[in-house]
């Protein structure tokens, strides 16, 4: 492993933290550091797969969280996971992110919503990225709007 220097440079022109990894080339060591730094910036959820194995899933990869009975399902684009936490607690944990309550039973990641559609019968349908869809309560429209406007 080559020598690594970590230092902080004050920059009054910035209003956020900017982490730059500098080096002669983007080699394996640089990739490892980038991955480590990336994991620090992402919220993760502790979930179980269908075999009961413990996994961590970045919140940004979650499409939908739904509850049915006592089972909380965390759906990503690739597979479904399960969590032993209430939907309300999860909603509080994810409220800083792009998640919003769309019904009594579901939270959706707005970054994973392709488009909204109000059907002829009067149902608010959400088409999700990567296929699939779900529906939202009409009462949740103001909350979704506030979230999209960045007011929540």
């Amino acid at each position, binding site marked *: 492993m080559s020598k690594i220097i970590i230092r902080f440079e004050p920059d009054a022109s910035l209003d956020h933290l900017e982490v730059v990894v500098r080096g002669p080339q983007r080699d394996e060591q640089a990739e490892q550091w980038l991955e480590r730094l990336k994991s620090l910036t992402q919220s993760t959820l502790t979930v179980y797969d269908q075999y009961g194995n413990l996994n961590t899933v970045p919140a940004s990869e979650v499409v939908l969280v739904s509850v049915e009975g006592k089972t909380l399902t965390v759906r990503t684009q690739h597979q479904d996971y399960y969590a032993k936490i209430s939907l309300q607690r999860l909603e509080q944990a994810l409220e800083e992110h792009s998640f919003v309550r769309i019904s009594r039973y579901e939270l959706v990641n707005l970054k994973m919503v392709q488009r909204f559609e109000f059907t002829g019968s009067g*149902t608010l349908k959400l088409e999700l990225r990567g296929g699939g869809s779900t529906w939202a309560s009409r*009462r949740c429209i103001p909350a979704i709007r506030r979230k999209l*406007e960045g007011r929540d």
Partner: protein
Amino acid sequence: MGKKCLRLAAAGFLIGVVMGLLIPFIITSLESGSIRFFSSSLQEKTGSMLASLLIHILVSGLYGSVCMAGTVLYDVESWPLALASGVHCLIIVALFEPISLCLRWTSTLAECLIINVIQIVCYFVIWLILWAYYRAQVRTLNELNEAAFRDGQKPEETHQIE
């Protein structure tokens, strides 16, 4: 939802009583110049002014209660707007017939059916307004969603590593 239903039913009872007294008052004062709060044929049937008034207040209040409490149907999240509106309309229309005949708001079944048709048309207009309102809201959501995507907030995280 149960508490909300009871609150709405209580408010609906008051509205029903007020409307039930106001409408005959306006009609009778315009028609004959005399002031009545219920149909004269109802009094003929009961034989007592007080009994007629009490029956009128109670039944019109109950009708108001059912109409208002029925609006909780719109809160059933899994029901589309058309279903909630349709069921609510059906309750109001179906109840109107026996109530109007009981309180002598209408004297014949034909009159009652005409009012039923007017109710259904009014309901359709209300549903259309609600549908257009929600559709406009959803259009705004799509605009905001597309703007967020264009601004690069989606689908990547804000804390992006390049």
